[in-house]
């Protein structure tokens, strides 16, 4: 079965500094996969290479079997890669609805229209609204994103990515910075994400990772240390060594 | 042929003198833009202030030349510290547009104040006798003041480069230009560093404006007229770099002098077009780090 997302020998160096070392990775349809590793392991760099924000020094990225290594961000989004950012990257002064609608409209192909007012595009508005309902944000639809509590802003991040109807969803520390009172909400949203999307979560929070993931990849100093099921990873001695002093959950 | 070579030498000489003045004025802009990420379009105001201090000091107060030069440096540096603490520092994290607007506002204020205090005409530069006249160099006569300019600027530039390479302050500047957050996390007091560096850069600008008062005339519209050239030096040289703007300034000085001599009808046209071309080829400047 062709993996929905795959990297072969992905490498990235900045001069003498290697941040990605021959990464072999695959994600199947409907996967629930997590990427963990100590700080500076190169997780975000890896994600940036998947989305096209960073060009690898060598290696290939394949989406549904198609080589997308040379493609830019916008092209990859069109082919079905969506992502959220570790730090909220939202349109702070725009409404929650607009934040999601922008992506939806782009997918519909109507976002470049100059003539008729945006409000007329009912399908875009309805779809954006439905997404907000799914994430429990419909009451905030008209409000300014910058005014929302941090946890809800994280949810808007996810809503925007979902609006792209991605085949692959890359969630960069979805719960980062969220106060514990709002954490459960996010976890429930993650559980309820559509089953046909392949999801890769990058995170430090072991509770979240073990709750969510079916497979885990451990990245250390730019290279894959080991990959396996949560039980295998939990019992792996080398992983324990790497996390010595950092672990919160054995 | 003899005449052509002679004019080449003359152009090179005057071009280098002009270029060095441009550098002394603009280097502060490059460092503070690279260090603080602040778009300071009003940098020319400091150069103009230095020029006015010199010319007023010489003609109205009869100060000795070295004293007037020193005053130009220190008064402008001191004034810039006040401005930085009171106004500039509040805008370090502001949007670029606001920084641009703020500095344009400063230019307007400075231009108006200069007009009110000194009138619209160019300031006469009353140089002391020992820098006037001709200076024989390698079998030719050159204007003594220009020779002095080149020599003095060379010393200042060497001192600056040495200071940045060898002193603790210089190391901190280089670290902070490279990675501000990192520098803060290892305990560098960036606020004080900014103020100190800003003062140094502005003082140098004042000094450059004073030294170059003969080449770049001191009049109220100074900051507007020469803004483009200072920005060109910095953007072609590369933000935060020391060597880059030096090369850029020399290139501009020589090219501008050559154009004025051989194709005066084209004015600064060639330089602007060349700037556009260079920036398109190398958006971060010849020696810059990032865009």
């Amino acid at each position, binding site marked *: 079965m062709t993996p929905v997302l795959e990297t072969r020998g992905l490498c990235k160096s900045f001069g003498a500094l290697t941040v990605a070392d021959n990464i072999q990775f695959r994600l199947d349809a409907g996967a629930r996969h997590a990427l963990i590793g100590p700080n500076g392991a190169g997780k975000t760099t890896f994600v940036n290479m998947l989305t096209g924000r960073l060009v690898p020094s060598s290696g290939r990225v394949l989406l549904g079997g198609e080589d997308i290594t040379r493609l830019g*961000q*916008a092209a990859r*989004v069109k082919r079905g890669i969506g992502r959220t950012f570790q730090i909220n990257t*939202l*349109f702070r002064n*725009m*409404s929650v*609805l*607009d934040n999601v*609608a*922008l*992506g939806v409209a*782009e*997918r519909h192909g*109507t*976002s*470049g229209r*100059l*003539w*008729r*007012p*945006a*409000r007329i*595009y009912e399908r*875009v*508005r309805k779809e*954006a609204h439905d997404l907000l309902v799914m994430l429990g944000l419909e009451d905030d639809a008209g409000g300014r994103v910058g005014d929302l509590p941090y946890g809800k802003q994280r949810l808007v991040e996810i809503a925007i990515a979902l609006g*792209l109807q991605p085949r692959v969803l890359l969630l960069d520390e979805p719960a980062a910075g969220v106060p514990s009172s709002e954490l459960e909400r996010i976890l429930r949203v993650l559980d309820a994400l559509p089953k046909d999307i392949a999801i890769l979560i990058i995170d430090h929070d072991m509770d979240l990772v073990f709750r969510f993931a079916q497979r885990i990849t451990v990245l250390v100093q730019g290279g894959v240390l080991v990959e396996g099921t949560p039980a295998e990873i939990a019992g792996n001695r080398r992983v324990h060594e790497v996390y010595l002093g950092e672990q919160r959950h054995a | 042929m003899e005449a052509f070579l002679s004019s080449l030498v003359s152009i090179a000489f005057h071009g280098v003198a002009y270029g060095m003045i441009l550098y002394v004025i603009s280097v502060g802009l490059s460092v503070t*833009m690279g260090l603080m990420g602040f*778009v300071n379009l009003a940098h020319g105001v400091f150069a103009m202030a230095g020029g006015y201090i010199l010319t007023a000091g010489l003609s109205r107060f009869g100060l000795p030349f070295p004293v007037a030069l020193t005053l130009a440096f220190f008064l402008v540096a001191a004034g810039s510290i006040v401005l930085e603490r009171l*106004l500039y520092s509040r805008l370090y994290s502001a949007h*670029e*547009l*606001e920084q*641009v*607007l*703020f500095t*344009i*506002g*400063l*230019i*307007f*204020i*400075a231009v*108006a*104040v200069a*007009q009110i205090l000194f009138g619209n005409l160019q300031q006469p530069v009353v140089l002391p006798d020992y820098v006037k006249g001709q200076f024989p160099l390698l079998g030719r006569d050159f204007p003594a003041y220009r020779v002095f300019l080149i020599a003095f600027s060379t010393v200042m530039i060497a001192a600056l480069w040495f200071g940045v390479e060898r002193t603790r302050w210089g190391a901190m500047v280089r670290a902070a230009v490279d990675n501000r957050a990192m520098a803060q996390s290892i305990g560098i007091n960036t606020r004080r560093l900014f103020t100190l560096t800003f003062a140094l850069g502005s003082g140098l600008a004042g000094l450059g404006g004073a030294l170059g008062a003969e080449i770049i005339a001191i009049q109220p519209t100074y900051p*507007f007229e020469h803004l*483009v050239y200072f*920005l*060109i030096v910095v*953007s072609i040289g590369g933000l935060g770099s020391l060597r880059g703007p030096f090369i850029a300034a020399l290139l501009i000085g020589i090219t501008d002098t050559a154009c004025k001599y051989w194709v005066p009808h*084209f004015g600064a*046209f060639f330089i602007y077009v060349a*700037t*556009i071309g260079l*920036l398109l080829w190398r*958006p971060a*400047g010849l020696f810059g780090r990032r*865009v």
Partner: protein
Amino acid sequence: MQAVGYGADPRIRWTEWLPWLAAVAVFFLLPEYLPLGARILVFILFALSLDLILGYAGVITLGHSAFFGLGAYVAGILAAKFGITDPLLLLAAAALAAGVLGITTGAVILRTHGLTQLMLTLAIAAVCFEIANKATPITGGADGLSGIKIDPIFGAFRFDMFGRTAYVYCLITLFCGWWLVRRIIYSPFGATLTGIRENEVRMHAIGVPVYLRLVIAYTVSAMIAGVAGALLTQTNQFVGLNVLGFEPSGELLVMLILGGVGRLYGAFVGPLVYMIAQDQLAKQFPEYWYLGIGLILVAVVMFARGGILGILDGLIARFRRPQ
């Protein structure tokens, strides 16, 4: 919050008709101010063009005078040197020329960011200034082109010496320009412009062709600025170097900031207030005028970032909710 996007009501509110009513009232009640009024209308159009690219798309440019000046000179040269004197044809030619300059320079500079981009806008404007300054046979050099005769509009409305025709001409052209900009702002395209301004990284991550959208916006903005320039030439029957260079760009920026950036009507309020004040005050005390403008600019940046409209908004908000 911005008045654009998918939730914004695009219908014209009654308050939006007030400026036009006021303009018509001026025509009947203040006939001796029509020449100044026409000038203000031209600069409102120019400010609208800048607001589109700066206020909505977030591209900082100090060289918008290049398009304004090009439009002004195209109109002037075609009329004075080539005998093309139909006013609407001149507007079209100016728009076309400015559009060509806009798309070529925009394609190039919108690939850059930060100081480099700012520098390029300045450099391009400087090049235009130099060309106009030196190409004396065509542009009149430092003296400019004077005595430009323009045909009556539609063959019927002569440009009279009281400036009545000019005023109405400018008003109608401004109306068309305003209507166009307003449509764009409320459209999905306008929403993407705001998105680009708010968070360009995010826009890339949702698949928007940012560069293309910016080039389109830049070109439209250039064309409108060109039309404004041509209007100025036609109403003054003169074009000179003062339409190019840093000064008109800088002054326009001040006008727009004063009125309020990214609010559509800031482009109305700013030039109105600035030019009336300039007309009354600057003649007597030119140095103090620039001093005042500089101080106001610094004050606006420090304390009143939304300009006059921002202050009004704040007052209205406090009025509605006494706390």
